[in-house]
């Protein structure tokens, strides 16, 4: 990776502390049968535990800090809790215990530490491929939900991934470099599949959006809103206005694969105007800084 890559948000406070379960079959413990190991590991994963299978014949990743729950058939009694450098280790004997009971031991420790249960939401957020990104700021100008920001070096960055609207890949459609991934998206290249020359040709997806709505999409939404307002005033036909707007949004939604819930959560037109202006100003400032470098 080159030195020019943006600094990721490592300084941001991690939302999850290190917590791992080790199914331990190393020195000082008896090996598990293949069936017991398989059942236990599958059950732990199903309950959202990062799990390491520790065996004498190779390596797993290190745990130097955080909490480690070590499950095993130990040759000698182990303390329930021990400290190992910056890591806290909880040993639990699992001999003759059914899988559900063993999993409950790990769940008990997770609950004691007040750690959130994983899996509460579908992890849906944009991931930037910096091998492709040209820092053009289109995504920053486009997103109304403050997902994007810029780092100290004025490089684009995903800053608020929890504000991203689940299943909405719209910003990846406006990226001219096909540099925005949503790993859990159905189709390539947005899901991380190799970017083909056809995908690059489709780089004018942005133009498609313009063709669809006749200009910048927020501009178009604003225009529509203005037109609806005037029509509403003239005709007092709220139903007709609503119908037309819905048609426009449905068409846009289909084209970009945007779920209807996203439209439902769009801010008011005034807020859209303010946010779009702010985002464009932020993007322009970053671009100006780049030019000055």
């Amino acid at each position, binding site marked *: 990776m080159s030195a020019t890559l943006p600094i990721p948000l490592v300084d941001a406070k991690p939302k999850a*502390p290190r917590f791992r379960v080790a199914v331990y079959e190393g020195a000082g413990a008896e090996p598990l049968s293949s069936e017991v190991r398989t059942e236990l590991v599958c059950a732990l994963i199903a309950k959202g535990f990062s799990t390491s299978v520790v065996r004498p014949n190779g390596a797993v990743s290190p745990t130097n800090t955080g909490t480690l729950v070590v499950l095993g058939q130990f040759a000698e009694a182990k303390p329930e809790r021990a400290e190992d450098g910056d890591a806290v280790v909880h040993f639990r004997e699992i001999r003759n215990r059914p899988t559900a009971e063993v999993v409950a031991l790990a769940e008990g420790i997770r609950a004691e530490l007040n750690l959130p249960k994983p899996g509460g939401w579908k992890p849906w957020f944009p991931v930037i491929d910096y091998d492709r990104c040209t820092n053009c700021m289109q995504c920053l100008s486009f997103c109304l939900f403050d997902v994007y920001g810029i780092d100290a070096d004025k490089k684009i960055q995903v800053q608020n991934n929890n504000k991203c609207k689940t299943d909405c890949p719209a910003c990846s459609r406006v990226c001219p470099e096909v540099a925005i991934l949503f790993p859990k998206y159905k189709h390539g290249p947005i899901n991380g599949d190799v970017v083909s020359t056809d995908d690059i040709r489709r780089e004018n997806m942005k133009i498609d959006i313009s063709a669809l709505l006749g200009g910048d999409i927020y501009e178009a939404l604003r225009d529509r809103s203005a037109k609806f307002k005037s029509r509403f005033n003239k005709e007092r036909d709220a139903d007709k206005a609503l119908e037309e707007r819905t048609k426009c949004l449905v068409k846009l939604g289909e084209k970009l694969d945007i779920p209807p819930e996203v439209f439902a959560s769009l801010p008011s037109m005034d807020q859209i105007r303010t946010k779009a202006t702010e985002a464009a100003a932020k993007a322009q400032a970053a671009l100006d800084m780049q030019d000055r470098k």
Partner: protein
Amino acid sequence: MSIPLRILYCNCSYANVVPKATKEAVLRALTESGMPFDAVPDLCEMSAQRDPSLHDLAGENVKIVACYPRAVKWLFHAVGAKLGDGAEVINMRTDSPDSILPKLLPEVPA
């Protein structure tokens, strides 16, 4: 000193994008192989939560069985964790267990 090879399995638990049968066959083969390995419920969630464990799981000589290599590389990068040039990503979204397992566990007979 050579860095020992590690295996990391991602269960992609929180979306239906990796075929269930593939995930189950790969996880089962790993547990039955008797090889040590790390397994996580969902790398995407860990990246979204900026889980510092991703730094421990990354590294030089690691085989990751998950999804598209481009997605996995940048998910790690998003938290400042670097996959080394020696890291290999095997794709359960596109490949079948028959083609994944010989790459993942070459020394274990099918």
